[in-house]
């Protein structure tokens, strides 16, 4: 496990594992013993204070564990001790699900087909022969082409143009529209002073 360490650089502290937990007061004068190979390291039940090679000390990897788990010490159920439930197996795994994040920013294309020629033919009644007017260029619902009104007026106009279709195909919309018309009539004509939009 510590094969990358040179024997000369390893200093083994001969103290038991339990003594570490008692605190600094109990640190006795310890003898430093140099080891010649890594086998001697693993056999000692001790903490190794080894000089690590030049690496950044900010991140810990599984190799940087302070003690090697002994093969003789089996995991037996116990009522004492502290079980570290934090995941120390390394960086979190990349799952198959895509990482949720904001959509990548796409700047609008100012020179797309619509935007490049926006406004074309708006002055056709002046610069053309006069048969076409800008009102003819508007695309939208039939009851709104070349006309503007508040909500009440729009609903009445919608009923006039497509009411017969709504009654047959969309009866709920038809019913709700009439309800709204009655509501707005009372709001605009009976409750004076309310804002009309």
């Amino acid at each position: 496990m510590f094969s990358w360490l040179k024997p000369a650089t390893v200093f083994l502290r001969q103290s038991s594992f339990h003594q570490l937990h008692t605190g600094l007061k109990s640190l006795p004068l310890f003898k430093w013993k140099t080891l010649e190979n890594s086998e001697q390291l693993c056999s000692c039940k001790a903490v190794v204070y080894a000089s690590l090679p030049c690496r950044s000390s900010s991140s810990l990897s599984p190799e940087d564990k302070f003690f090697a788990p002994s093969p003789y010490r089996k995991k037996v159920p116990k009522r004492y001790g502290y079980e570290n439930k934090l995941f120390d197996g390394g960086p979190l795994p990349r799952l198959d699900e895509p990482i949720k994040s904001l959509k990548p920013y796409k700047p609008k294309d100012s020179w797309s087909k619509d935007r490049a020629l926006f406004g074309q033919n708006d002055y056709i009644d002046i610069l053309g022969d006069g048969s076409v007017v800008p009102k003819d260029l508007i695309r939208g619902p039939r009851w709104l082409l070349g006309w503007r009104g508040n909500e009440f007026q729009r609903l009445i106009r919608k009923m006039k143009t497509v009411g017969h279709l709504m009654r047959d195909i969309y009866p709920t919309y038809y019913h709700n529209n009439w309800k709204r018309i009655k509501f707005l009539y009372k709001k605009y004509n009976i409750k004076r002073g309310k804002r009309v939009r």
Partner: protein
Amino acid sequence: MLGSRLHSIFPVCYTYARIQELHPLLKRFIVRSTSCNQDNLLTEKSLVGVPESSIYVAQRPSIPLITKREIEFPNRYREPKQAWLESLDTLQDEKLGLVDLHPDIFGTYPRIDILHANILWQRWYKKIDYAFVRSRAEMPGGGRKPRPQKKTGLKRQGSIRSPLWRGGGAAFGPRGPQSFYYMLPMSIRTLGLRVALSVKYAQNDLHIVNSLDIPSDDPKFIEDLIDTRFWGFSALFVDDIDIMPRNISLALKELPQFNLMPVYGLNVYSMLKHETLVLTLAAVEKLEKKLLAQMHKPENDVAYKKRH
């Protein structure tokens, strides 16, 4: 009638001469082959790498080709503005003469407020907003009183679809498809066109060209032309009629910033969106005629409301 007037100003076709040895200085004035007859259009290689022996030079009649132009409804207190007549035959500019422009159309006061009004109108009059949210009456459910009025200790509630509730209807939300249609008076719109043209002329962004015929349909040619002449990032080419020459149509198809337009499609928004405005002489004639007719018409704008 317009065509005949033009023919009297400059001839239909140019003649060509083949030169074996070309003086180095004359290379700047090399003219690509052009002809008004579209069947005889010659496709040539680009200027770089062409051997001297195969260079063509167009022999035009003596320049300037146009010295004076008739102006309708002349302004007796102001002299006409003048602009060069340029060509699109070569990468470098070749000035074919001077064109007189009406001062009331190309030299009006720069009314920024008129431009603003026109642009707002262009953006809003066609707009239809489809946003719609249901009110509490249109939401499903919500007819029953959730809990008794008194004694529960909780807030009194009449319906689960009240605007106070989560999932309830909107009290003053957007209601249905809404239009923003209105018309600016015709006089303001003509003034907008005139101001836009004047602003373009005053800022040297207006170029008048004899025709939109170019020698090759390669987009690189027109890109190099525009780069050489510093016409900017975007340009609007305006012609008399809506049928455009073949080469320029194919070349500008791949370039979205350079657009072709007939005179009847011209508008303030496009003129300000594109950095440069390139008008053909025929387009200038038609434009002036239409705008002056509007300026000097006897009817007033009150009748517009009845007509539209």
